[in-house]
Each structure stands twice: as C-alpha cells, then as structure tokens.
C-alpha cells in the first residue's frame, strides 16, 4: 500500500534527525518495564515474610507512581509529535495540493505513529528485559539478601502493563495528530516554512524591573522554606513558596532572554568578537519562544535533583543509623499500672482485662504465656520507666513555655515526660555502649536525639529551668540535652527522657518495664524462628486477657528499614530518571528540530569563510547555553530545596547528605550530559551534511 510506503520512507528519512526522540521513547518504555517488573526479581531471593510484605507495598506504590510517570511520558510524546508535525507542514501541504485528502494524510500520520510505537515498544521492552536482569543484583543488594539462584526473570504482568500503558499513550497521540491536522489550512501549511521570523527586542528597563522583582520574589520563597520553615504548619502552606518559585522562574527566563543580549550588546569588545554576536542572537531568537519550556525543564530538573538527593539521603542515613540505634538484639516492654490511667488506655483500644492485668514485668508476662523468655538470652538487663501527670512538657519548659507555644502551637504539651533512674539508664547505656552519666541528688538531665525537640528543650535548659518531682526541686545539670536513647529504632526519634537520682523515684509511678537482651544464637534463621514464635503468641486466647509485651528487635528494625529505604530509593530513581530524560529530550528535540534553520545559517557563515573550528565552537556554545541555563537555575533552586528537605527529614539525620548529592550529581551529569552530547553531535552532523555546499 502506498500510504504505508510513504510512512515508512518518512520514518527512515527522519530517524537520523529524531534519533533522540526514538532513543527517549525506547528508554521510557524500558524504564517503565524495569520498575514495574521489580517484584519478579525478588522471587529468586531469600527474604523473610515481612520483607515480602514490604516488597508488595513497594510494588503498589510503584504502580501508583507509574500512572504519574505515564502522564509525564504522555505529555512528552504529544509535545514531541506536535513539534515534529509542525516541521513537516510543507510536506503535508504538498500532499494536499496533489489532491490527497486530509483523511489520507491522517492515515499516513496514523501509520507513522503506529510504526514508531511498535518499534519503540519492541526495542524498549527488549532493552527493559535485559536491564531488569542487571536490576536483580541491585535489588538483592538493596534488600541485603542473598541471590539463591540466578535465573532469567521475565515479568509478564509488567510486560502487558507496559504494552497497555504505551498503547493508550500512542492512541492519544494519534487522536491528537488527526485533530490538529484537520484544523489546518492549506495556505498555512504551504507558507509555514516561509514565515518571517520577527525578532522583538524587549524593553530593557521593563526586563530589568521584572528581573529584579522576580529575584526578590524568588528570594522571599527561598527565605520562607529555609528560615520561616516553622511557620509552615500545614501542607497547603508549602504551596505558596512553590508557586512563588515557579512564577518567578518563568519571569526570570523571560527577562533574562531580553537582558543577556542587551548587556552583551553593550560590551562591544565581546559582542563583536568572532561569532559571539551570532551565537547570542541564535540564543535570544529562540529563547523568546522557549521561555515556557525552559521554565518547565528548570522545574523538572529541580524536582529531580531534590528527589534523588533526599531519597538517597534517607536510604544512606537509615542504613547507617541502624548500627548506632539498634545496638542489641531485642527489647521487650510492658506497660505497668495501666489502671491508673484507665480512661486513656480505654481510648487507645485496650480492653478491661488487659488494663486490669497490668502489674507484671516482661518476664512474668511471658511466663503467663508459658514462655521462658530468659532462656533465649545470652545476657540481658531489666529497667523501668516512670511518669506522672505532674511532670509534662508544660512543666519542663517552665517559664519558656509561652514563647515556645507561640512558635510551635501543635506540640503535645500535656504528654507526660518519661522519667528514668540514673542507675537504670546507665545500665542501658553500658549495654548499648553509649555514654553514661552521673547526677547529684538535686539535679536532673535530659537525654534526647530528635533534633527539633532537642532545640526546643535546650531553650528551657539553657535558662536553667527547675522542675519539681515527687516533692523535690531539681535543677538541670547541663544547659543542653545529652545524647542518648532507650527505645531501639532506625531513626533519631528520642524526644526526651528525664534522668534523676535513684532515691527521688516514687515506685508508685512506675509505668513501664523493659527487658533488653542479646540472643544466645547469632543465626539469622534461628532468630527469625524465635521472633515468629513470640509474634504468634499474640494470636493465642490469653492475649485478650493479658497484653503481650511489645518488642522491637534488631532484625525487625533492619527489615523494615531496608524495605523502606529500598522503596524510597526505587521511587526516587524511577521518578528522577523519567523527569531527567523527559526534560533533556525536550531540550534536545527542540534544538535538533531547529537545525534546518541553523543549517542555512551555518551554510552562510561557511560561505563567508568562517573556520570549521569556529563553527563547531559556536554550535557547541549555543547548545550548551540552552542546556545549562535551566540547569543553573535549577541548581540554585535545589540548594534551598535540599536545605528544606534536610529539615523535613531531620529524623533520618543528614550526615549522609554529601554522598547523596554526589551520587545525584553523577546521575545528572551522565544522563543530562549524555543528552547534551548526543544533541551536539546530531546537530553537528546535520550541519556538516552541507559541507560540500
């Protein structure tokens, strides 16, 4: 069929020019498949059931993200194809003058899209299947699991899903193409190529004014997210600086496009040197039309940078934290004297029996379940914590309460403080291998590691706020919180434990008994068996009568952490890479599609005797400016974005920030830089084709 042949020829003809488009489509399909097929990789891994649960959760999240990703890719494909069609207006005009009906031209386009779709899907899926083999290693590494066997994995569900999602996208593109073609007029199609490009120089004073205003607004947005951080109490509050940032980004590009040229023109020595005037004009003639896309690309890059670096920080920090924050095998706690706070515990959902039968230690509780918990342990310690309604955060903050309350209106000020005997805490500290402390009879100290809370408490401590406890008045030993914790976890979440001299404590106010120990066995499988057995107890009939001690074990924390960090990493990578290739592809495509105009211009330059080296340099600079400008602004945005993220993610710690930023930079340099180089070499090729003039 002739139409098919035309389509095929068209694709062949343009495949070189739009290599970057095909490349991106293929990459998009491959990435889509790889991330949706992640679960198939875990099949050959030796993982526990709780890890399996996390993987399932991760897959659910990833498929949610996939919907979002498909929107982004859909947008990219429609944008790109609209772009490619515009370039071919004249060709369609010729078809129409030859008497071809619009329906037939639509058919040509239809075949083209179909062919492109099929080719990119097939190649992309092939690449995806290959990549996902390599991904097995990454997944295994992430879950710290051993590969039991290496097998070729293929996920048919991901395969089908990819085909369906991309088919829908291509179908939408076809409908869109047909629609936009049916709206065209022949005269416009034929004259499209001839349109004289009007170059308007923007009013420099207006540009300057808008530039300054935008910088100011942007600065304000930066300030809000970094310094006025604490005023952002609700999720919607963060929208304000985001909108401010986005709008000012647009206007900065708008005004810069006018300003850069104006300023450069002012510096005659620079402007009339070599091809500088040409390069700058190239840049400004295009940026007038690309302000909007530059803005989008800048924001996408910004999101990518923040996303990647904070996800990697979370992952790295969590893994590093585990060693420090879960130093022993297991810790079991029971609530004691629950009947004292009957109403509150009822509200939490405990039943009357559980509340009434709450006068046993951890060891005694387990004995009620016919379990000799101590038999599992090589060594162990037992400690208690206390609390009283007479010592809440309200009291600890003392005279500083009011000023802190206006700053942080949403803190739970009525929560009872956790109190521990200094000797008990030192037992724990010794067992954990963290610093021990000593206290005089009339002193107290606070151990905490949750940064925001530490800061709040330090305000009161540095003021020397005294507290009264069980009829004693205590003054702070230190003017800051000391580092330490009782509860094992994967993050720094200890909001504060008050340590006091042993003789002050009134045993009446005992609220918790903790048993902390190391197992006799170090075998992971054995430990899993023990812990599964303990967890099973919760299902026994006794659990309704007696509350089972709650445990936090190193293994459980590890698994949860690994799962969570894997989830965060994969989602971050998935979105980050898609964002990155989309924005780089748009830039590259824009640059290449203009190469036909550039071809003429470079031809002229060559005719008047410009050196090849000079031409290459001009081309390189021209493309570099286009790739760099959004990146530079995105980098500036990211500095503040990351500062903000660091505060939000404080609990994870930010010691791992630098390596994450370096990793992010490497990813961006490889992908974005790769696209830049491909664009440069493709344009150079297009321009070189005319060398023989």
């Amino acid at each position, binding site marked *: 069929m002739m139409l098919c042949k035309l389509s095929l020829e068209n694709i062949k003809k343009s495949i070189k020019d739009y290599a970057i488009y095909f490349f991106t489509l293929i990459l998009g399909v491959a990435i889509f498949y790889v991330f949706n097929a992640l679960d198939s990789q875990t099949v050959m891994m030796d993982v526990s059931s709780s890890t399996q649960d996390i993987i399932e959760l991760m897959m659910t999240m990833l498929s949610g993200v996939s919907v979002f990703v498909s929107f982004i890719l859909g947008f990219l494909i429609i944008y790109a194809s609209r772009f490619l069609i515009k370039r071919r207006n004249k060709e369609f005009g010729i078809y129409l003058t030859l008497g071809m009906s619009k329906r037939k031209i639509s058919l040509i386009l239809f075949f083209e899209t179909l062919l492109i779709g099929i080719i990119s899907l097939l190649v992309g899926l092939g690449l995806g299947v290959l990549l996902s083999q390599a991904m097995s290693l990454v997944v295994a590494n992430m879950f710290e699991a051993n590969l039991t066997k290496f097998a070729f994995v293929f996920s048919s569900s991901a395969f089908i899903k990819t085909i369906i999602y991309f088919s829908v996208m291509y179908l939408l593109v076809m409908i869109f193409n047909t629609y936009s073609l049916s709206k065209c007029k022949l005269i416009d199609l034929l004259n499209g190529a001839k349109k*004289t*490009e*009007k*170059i308007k120089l923007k009013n420099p004073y207006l540009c300057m004014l808008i530039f300054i205003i935008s910088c100011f607004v942007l600065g304000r947005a930066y300030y809000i997210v970094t310094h006025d951080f604490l005023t952002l109490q609700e999720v919607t509050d963060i929208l304000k600086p985001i909108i401010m940032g986005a709008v000012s980004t647009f206007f900065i590009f708008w005004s810069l496009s006018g300003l850069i040229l104006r300023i450069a023109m002012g510096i*005659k*020595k620079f*402007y*009339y*040197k*070599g*091809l*500088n*005037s*040409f390069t700058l*004009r*190239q840049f400004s*003639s295009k940026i007038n039309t690309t302000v909007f896309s530059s803005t989008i690309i800048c924001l996408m890059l910004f999101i990518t940078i923040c996303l990647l670096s904070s996800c990697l920080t979370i992952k790295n920090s969590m893994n590093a934290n585990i060693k420090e924050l879960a130093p022993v095998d297991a810790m079991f706690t029971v609530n004691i004297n629950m009947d004292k706070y009957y109403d509150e515990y009822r509200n939490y959902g405990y039943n009357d029996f559980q509340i009434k039968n709450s006068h046993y230690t951890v060891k005694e509780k387990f004995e009620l379940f016919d379990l000799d918990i101590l038999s599992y342990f090589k060594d162990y310690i037992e400690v208690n914590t206390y609390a009283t309604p007479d010592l809440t955060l309200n009291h600890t903050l003392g005279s500083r309460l009011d000023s802190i309350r206006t700053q942080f209106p949403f803190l739970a000020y009525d929560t009872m403080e956790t109190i521990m005997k200094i000797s008990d805490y030192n037992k724990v500290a010794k067992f954990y291998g963290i610093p021990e402390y000593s206290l005089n009879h009339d002193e107290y100290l606070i151990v905490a590691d949750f940064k925001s809370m530490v800061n709040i408490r330090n305000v009161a401590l540095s003021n020397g706020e005294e507290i009264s406890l069980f009829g004693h008045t205590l003054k702070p030993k230190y003017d800051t919180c000391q580092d330490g914790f009782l509860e094992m976890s994967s993050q720094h979440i200890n909001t504060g434990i008050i340590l006091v001299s042993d003789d002050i404590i009134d045993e009446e106010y005992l609220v918790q008994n903790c048993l902390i120990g190391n197992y006799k066995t170090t075998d992971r499988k054995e430990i899993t068996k023990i812990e599964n057995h303990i967890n099973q107890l919760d299902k026994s009939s006794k659990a309704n009568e007696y509350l089972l001690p709650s445990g936090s074990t190193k293994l459980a924390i590890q698994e949860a952490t690994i799962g969570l960090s894997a989830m965060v990493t994969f989602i971050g990578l998935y979105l980050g890479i898609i964002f990155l290739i989309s924005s780089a592809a748009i830039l590259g495509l824009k640059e290449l599609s203009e190469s036909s105009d550039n071809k003429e*211009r470079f*031809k*002229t*330059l*060559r*005719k*008047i*005797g*410009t*050196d*090849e*080296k*000079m031409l290459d340099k001009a081309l390189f600079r021209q493309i570099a400016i286009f790739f760099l400008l959004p990146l530079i602004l995105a980098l500036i945005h990211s500095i503040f974005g990351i500062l903000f993220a660091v505060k939000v993610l404080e609990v994870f710690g930010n010691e791992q920030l630098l390596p994450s930023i370096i990793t992010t930079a490497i990813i961006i340099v490889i992908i974005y830089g790769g696209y830049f180089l491909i664009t440069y070499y493709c344009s150079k090729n297009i321009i070189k084709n005319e060398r023989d*003039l």
Partner: protein
Amino acid sequence: MENILKVDKIEKYYGSRSSLTKAIDNLSFEVEKGEFVAIMGASGSGKTTLLNCIGAIDKVTSGHIFVGGFDITKLKGNELNRFRREELGFIFQDFNLLDTLTAYENIALALSIQGISASIIEQKIKKVAEELDIKDVLNKYPYQMSGGQKQRVASARAIITDPKLVLADEPTGALDSKSSKMLLEKLEFLDGLGATILMVTHDAFTASYARRVIFIKDGKIFKEIHKGKDTRKEFFDKIIDVVTLLGGDLNDAL
C-alpha cells in the same frame, strides 16, 4: 596592471565515467586589478560552476586558479576558509544574510571572524554604509528590508574586508529593475574606488554596467567584449548583438 585573477586551463567534470558532463572545458582568462568583469551565459553554460571554482566553493578537475599570485586549487580545509575570509568577498543572488542579525551585525560578522577589534569594525561600517547608502537600515533585520537594501547590505559585507576580488553571483537576480539599477550603480561606484569585481549574470542590462563581458557557452569562452569608450547604452547594444549571435535561451533574458 597587476594581475588579480588568473584562470589557467581549468576543467570541471561532473558525473561518472559513463555519463560525463563537462561543465567547464579548458577555460582560461585573466582579470586585472580594479576591473569590473561580467560573465554571461545561458543556464547550464557553466558560469556558476566557474564562479564556485574561483570562490573555492567547488574544486576544479584540472587546471589552476591564481588569486593574487597564489594557486588556490592547492588550498585545503581551513586554508580555504581563510582564503575565502580574507581574499574574497561574496555577493549572492539570495543575499545570504543571517536572519537573526541586524544589517550592522551581518556586516560586522565578516570582520569579527577575522579577529578585528570592535572599534575598527565600527569605523569601517560607518564608511561603507555611507558609500552604499544603507545608513538608515543598519539597525534593521533582513525581514524589515527591501530586496535592494538587503543586496546592498550583502555588498557591504562583501567589500568591507577589502578583498582582492569580489565575486557576485547573479546579484540582481532577485531584484526589481529599479533596485537592480541602484545596486549596479553602487557596484560601478565601488569599482571606481578600486575594487575588483567579477560578476556572473544572464541579464544583458546587468552586464552592461561591467567594463568587460566574457560570454560562455558549453563551458568554453565564446566571445569577449570591452566597453572601452562606449556609453553604457552603446555597450548594452553590443552585448545584445552577441546574445543574439549566441542564440538559445539567453534570448529569454531580454
């Protein structure tokens, strides 16, 4: 007089062995400093090929072209670019101005790629703009100018580097008769200032502004006539006579 251009027995073949086209067939002539020479011929006579060879845009199959004593057929790569940049000035039928640059910047580019400083560029452009009467359009973009203005800007770009030789390929081809006349008067004026101009055309009126016309047919020199003491009108009539003699489609140009 000094010899600016010497074309020595050049040949240019196109195509493969089986279907060989001789675009230029053993052609020789010379141009002296300060001359204004027109090359006339019908389409396909080889005149544009000749100009491309002289302009080092195309390579000859055999023979030599000497510009200012240098054999340009031996130049390669960037030497060619340097030669084009420093020794030649080009005026094209379709102007070949850069659409993104103003007239001033278009002219300046010819100098800036030679590494000439901005202050000298400014002086030179001022002078040439006066000579070619384009002072008013210096800050306009090509799309804001008439064809005649564009071609005068292109001419300014061609002569601003003080080239040994200005090559004009159908400079009036895209202009109406009034603009053509104005452009040719300017070229005549530039010639008076000492520029050496070699112009290719198929239009007798355009050719009549030159001081010598070389007629080419089938890649060979058919005839050569000098203006001598003739008025432009008399020279035009002489050209027409040769054109009639030449016959063929060159008549269409009348």
